[in-house]
């Protein structure tokens, strides 16, 4: 549990000084994650349970830290720490994608989809809350619930994650139907783009879906040590999770909104826009130049 810090608005001191900042011009992929491996970053995969000994995961799963959440016949939540299997293959697919991008990130499996449907939303919520309490740097949710009665609890937990510095990545719904928690501003909601380059993602200027990443006809790890091909936003989300893990491993102490800003600036469509992120528009450049010249003239100087 992180030590409680009084919110900034309660202080009458001056603004907190920041030692070093990057300018928007610096936010290139090379700056953001070049040379990074994910070392030192813990990623939680909340799903059907990761198959830890899958040969393509390279031992990246912290088996002993894993946790499974179920609801018993009396409606009580049951937490089972340690090793578990993958009930379907979906979690292993997500872990495989994260491991491909961030090979030294440590993955923890949080199993909330198992036998039975009773209380599945409760198990899902508790699994997410547990991951937030454990202060995982990145949390992947390639699942969601459409039940409106669970919307508020998920909102609360995602906000807690945001303020505790967990970066929560969720798969967006395919159609315009509510799916929680992918609708919340405190998470990064991801849908598919058409790319097969795992590092090529896009920014979507029309929220709630904020990023687009590869998720179509993807070669994915699956249960029982196998691989198959899959399509869906479920596989797009872990691509952003993997990139976020790389960025966090290279730039310590980033807050979620800073991470989103870096993802925005390094998105393919932003990088390839006629005017790269951080550059002033031509009009602004002219205006700035005129003002500078006027200021210099006022003190008897000219621009060299």
């Amino acid at each position, binding site marked *: 549990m992180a030590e409680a810090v009084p919110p900034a608005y309660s202080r009458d001191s001056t603004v907190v000084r920041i030692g070093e900042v990057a300018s928007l011009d610096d936010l290139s992929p090379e700056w953001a994650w070049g040379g990074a491996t994910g070392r030192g970053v813990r990623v939680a995969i909340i799903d059907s349970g990761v198959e830890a000994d899958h040969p393509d995961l390279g031992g990246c799963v912290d088996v002993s830290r894993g946790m499974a959440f179920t609801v018993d016949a009396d409606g009580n939540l049951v937490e089972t720490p340690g090793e578990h299997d993958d009930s379907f293959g979906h979690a292993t697919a997500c872990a495989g994608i994260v491991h491909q991008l961030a090979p030294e990130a440590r993955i923890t499996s949080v199993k909330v*989809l198992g036998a*039975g*449907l009773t209380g599945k939303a409760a198990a899902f919520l508790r699994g997410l809350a547990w991951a937030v309490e454990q202060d995982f740097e990145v949390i992947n949710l390639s699942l969601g619930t459409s*039940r409106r009665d669970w919307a508020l609890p998920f909102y609360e937990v995602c906000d807690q994650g945001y303020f505790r510095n967990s970066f929560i990545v969720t798969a967006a719904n395919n*159609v315009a139907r509510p799916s929680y928690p992918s609708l919340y501003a405190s998470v990064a909601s991801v849908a598919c783009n058409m790319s097969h380059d795992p590092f090529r993602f896009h920014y979507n200027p029309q929220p709630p879906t904020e990023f687009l990443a590869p998720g179509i006809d993807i070669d994915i790890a699956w249960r029982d040590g196998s691989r198959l*091909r899959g*399509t*869906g936003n*479920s596989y797009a989300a872990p691509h952003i999770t993997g990139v976020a893990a790389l960025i966090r491993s290279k730039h310590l102490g980033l807050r979620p909104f800073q991470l989103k800003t870096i993802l925005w600036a390094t998105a393919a469509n932003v990088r390839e826009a006629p005017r790269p992120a951080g550059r002033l528009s031509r009009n602004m450049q002219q205006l700035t130049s005129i003002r500078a010249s006027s200021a210099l003239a006022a003190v008897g100087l000219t621009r060299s």
Partner: protein
Amino acid sequence: MNVAPEPILQALLDAAVNSTGGTDGWLLVLRDDVLEVVAASGPSAATALGVSVSADTGTAGFVVRSGQPVALAPRPGGPALTSGMAAIVGRVPTSVLGIPCESDEGVVGALEVVDKAGGGTFTFDDVELATLLAGVAGVALQTLKPLHNRVPDAGELAGELRRLAQSDPTRYATVASVLTALIASG
């Protein structure tokens, strides 16, 4: 158990199978921890209709638990996706499309289509199209669910038993007469 599918559900399933280029498809309603096939399309339709499968297994089982659509295809020589409905109808699919059917109350069922024609894999367009149809199916399933769950009144039950008694007297006649007597006695 073979039951006549609701025309709206059958039409939605047929549309999903045809528009995605699938060979077989099943529309399953969720009841407790069981998925029951309420509409079926393709060569396996007669076998599949009315069948129940655990919601713990197969592609349909996963999508109702996760709320996420999936399109999967085994790699050549790799393990097959044979659990759930595929096992029941004896298919070894070359491709699978699973979509949750949702209503305002959450996931109420699943739409599953298998074996894209020509041996291809289901595309993202297929996923989006099937998701739209599954959304309509979700509303239809939610509307129809009370009809499936309601208890028939005693007179309706007695009438049904009388009809059954005519086809199998030894099995149903006694039950029908007891029930008729109970109704008569108020």
